[in-house]
């Protein structure tokens, strides 16, 4: 901590000029992260931002903490090595849809299954921005881009389902425009012990403008956004007379709040894996809204703690005599005196 007074948001800004395109969704995310750091009581010297390659991956240069702008797709594995050896640090991974799910897809799923205590902020803009507009692994099928002039035939990833499949212990979705929701989601990610994956819908106003407007425009978002709050019914639509999701024998349905039995309402429990699977697939059916907030979480052993536990069970051999014994082995012989 600083000697005189607690850190403020400004303390987390660097002297480097931020170089994203004007209007980029990344600015909003950067602001929320800078604001959040002092709220979480994080110390600059104990915080590390690690990124891969892509527009979002310039992020560490703008955070006055320790930072490493690595190579394409590998932030997750750099962070794993760092966290294994430095469990005292707060480690934040900044990645994107191409960086995290395409070139770095392998490291992402392996990080999730191992479950080190890190936060992954995956900026999903459904496009390659830095290389000027090719389809990404989350671009919708049929999307016309510079590398898919007739529309891409690739089937996109559903990150929440991918994370579930990899046994992620925390997955949440938020969006760049909803600053309060964004900040609160990141706070929950930080509070979760284990790997927290946050998918942030981020508008690329140059190569993929408006891709998420269905979830951000006033006119549509009530119908299209499902806010997840632990212990609250899953409702969406007209605030005066919202629809509520129901869950009966594994089947999803909707009812009107005012006319239905509250007992039938689906109350959100992010620890319920079966329902999490349903939530991850909910908006495959266009009649249903897309979930935002914490889709699922699990209290699962943390990787570096499991390692530390093993180490505690082994008597250390760190003295010079120990090393001498390692060097000599137990079958040595003496020649001469």
């Amino acid at each position, binding site marked *: 901590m600083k000697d005189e007074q607690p850190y403020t948001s400004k303390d987390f800004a*660097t002297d*480097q000029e931020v170089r994203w395109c004007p209007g980029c969704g990344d600015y909003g995310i950067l602001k929320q992260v800078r604001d959040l750091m002092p709220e979480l009581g994080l110390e*600059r*010297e*104990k*915080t*590390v*931002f*690690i990124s891969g*390659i892509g527009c979002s991956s310039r992020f*560490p*240069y703008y*955070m*006055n*903490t*320790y*930072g*490493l*702008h*690595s*190579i394409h797709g*590998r932030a997750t*594995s*750099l*962070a*794993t*090595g*760092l*966290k*294994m*050896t*430095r469990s*005292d*640090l707060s480690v934040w991974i900044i990645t994107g849809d191409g960086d995290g799910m395409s070139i770095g897809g*392998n*490291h992402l799923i*392996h990080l999730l299954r191992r479950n080190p205590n890190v936060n992954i902020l995956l900026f999903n803009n459904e496009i390659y921005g830095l290389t000027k507009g090719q389809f990404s692994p989350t671009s919708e099928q049929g999307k016309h881009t510079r590398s898919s002039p007739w529309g891409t035939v690739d089937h996109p990833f559903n990150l929440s389902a991918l994370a579930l499949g990899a046994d992620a212990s925390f997955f949440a979705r938020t969006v760049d425009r909803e600053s309060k929701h964004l900040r609160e989601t990141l706070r929950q990610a930080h509070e979760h012990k284990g790997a927290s994956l946050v998918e942030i819908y981020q508008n690329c106003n140059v190569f993929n403008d408006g891709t998420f407007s269905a979830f951000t425009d006033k006119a549509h978002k009530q119908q299209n956004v499902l806010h997840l709050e632990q212990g609250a019914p899953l409702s969406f639509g007209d605030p005066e007379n919202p629809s509520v999701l129901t869950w009966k024998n594994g089947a999803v349905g909707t009812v009107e709040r005012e006319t239905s039995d509250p007992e039938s309402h689906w109350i959100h429990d992010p620890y319920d894996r079966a329902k999490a699977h349903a939530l991850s697939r909910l908006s495959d059916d266009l009649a249903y809204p897309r979930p935002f907030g914490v889709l699922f979480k699990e209290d699962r052993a943390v990787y570096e703690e499991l*390692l530390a536990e*093993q*180490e505690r069970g*082994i*008597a*250390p*051999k*760190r003295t*010079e005599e*120990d*090393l*001498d014994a*390692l*060097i*000599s*082995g137990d*079958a*040595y*012989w*003496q*020649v*001469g*005196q």
Partner: protein
Amino acid sequence: MAAPKDLTKATVLFAGDSGDGMQLTGGQFTQTTALSGNDLNTFPDFPAEIRAPAGTVPGVSGFKIHFGSAKVYTAGDQVDTLVAMNAAALSSQMDQLKKGGMIIANSNGMDARNLRLAGLQEDRDLLGEAEKRGFEVVSVEITRLTKEALKDSALSNKDKDRAKNMFTLGLVYWLYDRELERTERFLEDRFADREDIQAANLKALRAGHHYGETTELFRNRFSVPPADLPPGRYRNIKGNQALSIGLIAAAHKSGLDLFYSGYPITPASDILHEMAGSKAYGVHAFQAEDEIAAITSAIGAAFGGSLAVTASSGPGIALKTEALGLAVMLELPLVVINVQRGGPSTGLPTKTEQSDLGQALFGRNGEAPLPVLSCASPKDAFDVGFEACKMALEHMTPVMILSDGYIANGSEPWKFPSTSELPDIQPPLHRADDGEYVPYKRDEKGVRKWAVPGTRGAEHRIGGLEKQAETGHVSYDSENHQQMVRERKEKVERIAQGYSRQEVSCGSREGGLLVISWGSTYGAVRTAVERMHKNGISVGQYHLRHLHPLPSDLGDLIERYDQWLVPELNEGQLLQLIRSTYLVDAEGLNKVQGVPFTHGEVEEAIERMIDKRE
């Protein structure tokens, strides 16, 4: 029988099916030989398949040991005694025998079925043919005699059969006048919880030894007296093991934890195994999801202040290449080990080669120089491992070590040091009270400071983009790029200032022919040069450990000679470097057959060159 005949040197090759336990047999013979005070060198040669079809030639597993009362630098050119457990082993290894050499053949493994499996006519008389070629054939019913010795055991026939390698070992111990004691202790230990197996193996071992004593099949018995080694404490050590211990010693001397990451790959996996078992020494071992994660997790650990190491073989090193460039760019300490094998692509996974030198020196995008060191032999791997770590930490650079399959699995006696004799390692760590931290400000050696997370006031951002001199901020300025490329290069080149003076390993100190060796060719070249120099030929050996940066006085040494020969297990990669760096008309001796040079091959090449001059 008369007293054992004294020999200065002997080479024994144990060959059998991969399921016959020949590696274990050879390993035990090696330990006992080492403890008897001989100098030695071993070469295990096994198939890439875990269990190739039993009885076939591809399934043959061999273990060669060369031992003596004089210095031994190679695993031996020609074999004095071939132990062959089946027809495939005998037919494929017979050519390795010296003229008049001895064959101990398991006659039960030479029947029609075994001949067929070896791809031979069922009526072939291999033993008769061997006798006709002048070999001394000792035919022993090893399988039957082992079962006979174990007739009172409750073990299954299959388990009894598995003890035949111990019968064989007992017999060879008798032949070379060795004690059984060490192997007895090993068996007691190994099968402490399986008394029946323990008893059977001990019985088979003793039965084999006893058989040698009572039978009159052998015309001779041999004894190899202890070697006249310099005084000190010795142990026998394999290359991968020595390398691993060198890394742990370096971590100890630097006061840092060791982070080791690897992905399973032949022939580097034994380093991963050693490291995984070394938690007590402060080693964090990580089996990564792939080769790229192995190196990038190591870079992450290096950023966090650990001594970070990753090892692989050629194909894995290829995958690590981009990240290696990142380490060059970040200027973080990192040690990358390449235990070379036959290439390209998957190549010959279990065979040795030196064909990744070019990859180590030049295999990165951009101007990305880094120090490259090579191990000369199994024991040398300790020194090289330690030196590489010291270099990486004190010069803030990734360092590549080139070992190979021959060194990794081979073994030799090692006069080991004590910890107190090893130099200290002092990484240029920036402390919180050192004042302002400027990430890429350099000291007189061109080395930047290492500020690890947790150090207050030294928060900084680094990355793979070109950075402004000193500050490390992203910079696309053209003059700055030129400057930074030069700074990184000069930092690495200055490392050569710390080398000791270069001298020849043996032979003529000037004039005549200089043989330049690197890596595991050291032993064969040394043997060849010593033999020829003793015969009055003007030839010397220079062994190159530091492949980059090259020693600054190497040019002067090279100029003292009139001819230059560069033997390599590749198509001439060091040769190119020597020719282009020193502008001399050096010639190559090249072999890519998955096996080391014999000293005979090197001698022939030396003779050819000298004849040409005359």
